[in-house]
């Protein structure tokens, strides 16, 4: 017992010794002692030598009050020679902070004078890091929990190794410079300026909001990006938009490293209200920016073109050489859509394409009219060309290079573009239907009426090309099923409710309880089940096709042949009455549903 007591007491004693050693012998004291010694040997002035002799190490700090929250910068505890020009050639931490004309330092009588005096600015205003710390790990911001590691000097242990080499370099400090030097062409911040230009040029502003710069609402607000995110995260978000959020629909812009760096530095400089402005400045800038400036005297088409650029429509859409890679091509909009369609679409994108993901923008009507006028003027049809070229020009963006319905924008289009490589589907539908779809488009979907840009022989050519190249069939050979052309079951409340009952029993697994095509199984099914509340589509489809699809299935899709599962023609008729009954345009034609 007594031995154990003695051992435990000994441990307490030892630990106390260690703790006292740890707490009383600091590395910074060694640095300071070294500084005093070296300075004494460098000094030619006996009074200064005597002063240095008398100096004992203690914590040095600069309290900075002029730049935002009060900062306590103890960096000079180790970097005690930062302002001593004699130490220019020494090694860190006892090294003079470089003087540079680019930073505004001036030479007077052979002595440099700093423009940014440490006594006013401290250190972390420009370098970031943690001013209160007294050891490298914490004060340089190597601690992964510290939100502001030293800009361009320190990378934290949990940062991605493949980005690390890009994240070092004095250029990153420009983000701090820009807190005061906010002029857009300030010579000292070339990367910030370039990043700002890229922010416009790459259409970032279409989706992202930065107070005083842009008003986008689709992506995250970046007003305080520089405060919230570390450069590692910013870099990752630009080069791999889905790294943090699987469902992000931000495009990968495939920028070069220099551009990414400029954007990261620009974003790092966005920290809400910066030192140079007041909250009132910010508000004024906001007011000015909300109204897009149309040069006076510009009207109609021209104004629309300007708006289209200002509102970054091409951040998603394609127009001429600009392609956002998310939404349909606008190049032939004047041919394929009319004014009414465009206006309705602007005011509510889902009014014409019920599953469109386009946001509803709340611009003034006047702006929508200008945009319509401009788009309506785009009436130049594509130059006549061979079928495969036409396919590349008009179809490939949605239906894909291989015709498999996986074009670059397909992911964002609902219903999905048709997969032509599904032979079962392509061979089981009459040729007429394909021709109609191409010429007249498919209402309620993103398939436009190409008949207004292509001549009949061109349409035939493209269709033949598709059948031969992708479906690998010569011609469709649909089976003739015995289905009625018109629904023989009279529309009545009884029929509709019978139809609803069958629908709820048989169809909701895929088409959903609301018949919107979003049933529990729908996610795993390609193409996704049809949205039966897409009234544009439902109104267009004839009874015959509905009977055929319900009773004999749709080849190449998950829709089974329900006649095999015991549905009769009458059942199908009831279902069709039910489907037509839940779609508003059908309602006006069918007296029973209007009550």
């Amino acid at each position: 017992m007594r031995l154990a007591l003695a051992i435990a007491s000994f441990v307490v004693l030892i630990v106390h010794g260690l703790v006292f050693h740890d707490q009383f012998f600091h590395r910074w004291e060694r640095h300071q002692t070294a500084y005093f010694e070296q300075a004494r040997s460098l000094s030619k002035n006996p009074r200064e030598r005597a002063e240095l002799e008398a100096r004992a190490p203690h914590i040095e700090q600069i309290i900075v009050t002029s730049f935002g929250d009060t900062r306590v910068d103890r960096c000079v505890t180790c970097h005690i020679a930062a302002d001593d020009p004699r130490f220019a050639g020494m090694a860190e931490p006892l090294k003079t902070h470089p003087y540079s004309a680019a930073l505004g330092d001036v030479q007077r009588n052979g002595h440099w004078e700093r423009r940014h005096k440490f006594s006013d600015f401290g250190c972390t205003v420009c370098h970031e890091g943690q001013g209160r710390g007294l050891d490298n790990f914490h004060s340089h911001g190597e601690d992964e929990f510290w939100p502001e590691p030293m800009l361009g000097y320190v990378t934290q242990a949990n940062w991605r190794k493949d980005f690390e080499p890009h994240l070092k370099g004095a250029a990153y400090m420009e983000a701090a410079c820009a807190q005061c030097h906010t002029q857009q062409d300030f010579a000292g911040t070339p990367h910030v300026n370039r990043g700002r230009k890229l922010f416009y040029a790459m259409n970032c502003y279409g989706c992202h909001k930065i107070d005083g710069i842009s008003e986008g609402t689709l992506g995250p607000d970046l007003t305080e990006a520089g405060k919230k995110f570390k450069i590692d995260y910013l870099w990752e978000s630009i080069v791999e938009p889905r790294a943090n959020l699987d469902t992000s629909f931000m495009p990968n812009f495939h920028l070069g490293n220099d551009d990414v760096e400029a954007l990261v530095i620009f974003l790092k400089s966005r920290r809400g209200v910066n030192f140079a402005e007041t909250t009132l400045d910010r508000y004024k800038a906001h007011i000015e920016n909300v109204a897009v400036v149309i040069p006076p005297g510009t009207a109609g088409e021209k104004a629309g073109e300007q708006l289209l650029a200002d509102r970054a429509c091409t951040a998603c859409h394609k127009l001429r050489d600009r392609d956002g890679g998310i939404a349909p091509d606008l190049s032939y909009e004047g041919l394929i859509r009319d004014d009414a369609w465009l206006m309705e679409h602007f005011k509510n994108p889902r009014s014409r394409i019920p599953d469109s993901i386009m946001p509803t923008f709340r611009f003034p009507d006047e702006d929508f009219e200008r945009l319509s006028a401009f788009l309506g003027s785009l009436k130049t049809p594509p130059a006549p060309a061979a079928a495969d070229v036409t396919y590349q020009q008009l179809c490939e963006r949605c239906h894909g290079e291989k015709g498999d319905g996986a074009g670059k924008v397909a992911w964002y289009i609902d219903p999905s573009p048709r997969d032509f490589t599904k032979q079962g589907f392509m061979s089981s539908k009459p040729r007429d239907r394909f021709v109609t779809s191409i010429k007249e488009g498919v209402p309620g979907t993103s398939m436009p009426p190409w008949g207004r840009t292509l001549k009949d022989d061109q349409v035939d050519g493209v269709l033949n090309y598709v059948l031969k190249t992708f479906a690998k069939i010569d011609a469709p050979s649909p089976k003739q099923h015995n289905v009625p052309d018109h629904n023989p079951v009279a529309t009545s409340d009884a029929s509709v409710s019978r139809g609803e009952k069958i629908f709820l029993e048989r169809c909701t697994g895929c088409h959903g309880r609301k018949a919107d095509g979003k049933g529990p199984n729908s996610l795993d099914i390609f193409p996704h089940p049809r949205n039966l509340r897409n009234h544009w589509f439902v109104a267009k489809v004839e009874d015959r096709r509905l009977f055929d699809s319900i009773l004999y299935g749709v080849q190449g899709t998950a829709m089974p042949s329900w006649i095999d599962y015991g549905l009769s023609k009458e059942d199908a008729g009831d279902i069709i009455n039910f489907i037509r009954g839940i779609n508003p345009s059908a309602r006006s034609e069918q007296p029973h549903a209007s009550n």
Partner: protein
Amino acid sequence: MSTAPDTTIWTTLKELPSNVWSSIFRNPLPNTDLERSSTSFTNFFLHIHPVKVHRNTLRPIYTLGLGLISLFLFLILVVTGVLLMFYYVPSTTQAYDRMLDLRGTVAFGIFLRNMHRWSAHGMVAMVFLHMCRVFLTGAYKKPREFNWVIGVLLLLVTLFLSFTGYLLPWDQLAYWAITVGTSIAAYAPLIGKQMQFVLLGDTTVGQEALLRFYVLHVAVLPAVLVLLAAIHFWRIRKDGGLSRPQPAEAAAKPMVYKKVVYGLQGFVRGPFTKVGNVPDDSVYSWPNLLLSELFVFVLTVSVILVVSLLFNAPLEQPVNVMHPPNPAKAPWYFLGLQEMVSYSAFWGGIGIPGLMVALLLGVPYLDRNPKGVGRWFAKERLLANTLFLTLVTLNVIFIIIGTFFRGPNWTFVSPF
């Protein structure tokens, strides 16, 4: 006595040290049993002890010293806590900066904080283990029922103390742990939301919450804990010392008879005082008990010191209300609750824990089987011990799952 003291200056000075000493300590180091009794009895700090204690009390394997360790951890917490209070400011704008100063600049700051942090975690664990010890040795049985109840209350106060302290560094860890913890409280029926509001002084964790938690942490709860602990210790003696097995045969040991007079002790005659025809199986507190206590104290202090030297208390980034970590986790001792909450908010957060506490409080009144006291895992208590261990194991498993196996969005992840 009759001779007047020699009052010459020289003698006065010469005898000054010994006079001061003997005025403070009435007894010299004891040599006889009478003096040993007297030492315990006349010293303010020592007279919390009985003059003699039963041998069973001193068996390390019986108590494992868990109660004492809890007490000593509390003392360490009070001392380090008071020192930390000199530097801490309960303000959302200053608290985190103060943490940085404590870590980087204040002499011994980081060490004090480490000791405080690890002692707090240790105290929660030790109080819990102490409860397990008391249950598994059947020590809560008559006449110690009420002391068990106080013990359960002490456990709750300890948990709450640790919980309130968790917020004070005002870093992400603190902020979101308290957000989660107080949200669990909000699931209580009827008064849940109000309770959360009273606790936070707001609908979210903010300046008001920080101030409230601070006051609770440094003033209210320690006071409550000291009071309850005082009653807890007092009751130990009034209930006849620590529990022990029934003596096997009555007459084997020497007896102490009524004729022996112990001064005031003679009046202290509950059913369990040793004055009477009870076999005397006890030893003098001085030095036996005292030495054991000293050993436990030094051991506790040395472990805490070593741990504090090796591991720094966590300090994450400053609070960012817009950026919850994913997952946001409560302090480890509430992770069992959070894990259960992920299955059912009400049952996991309020129902089951409430039931558990009620059960714990009621245990001595429900389990009235008088057998099996004073022995670990007594056969007569097979059912009770099994039930208890099952619940404890379940809770521990939930805590382990919550701590190590839960990733973003509370999905199951493997820590390996």
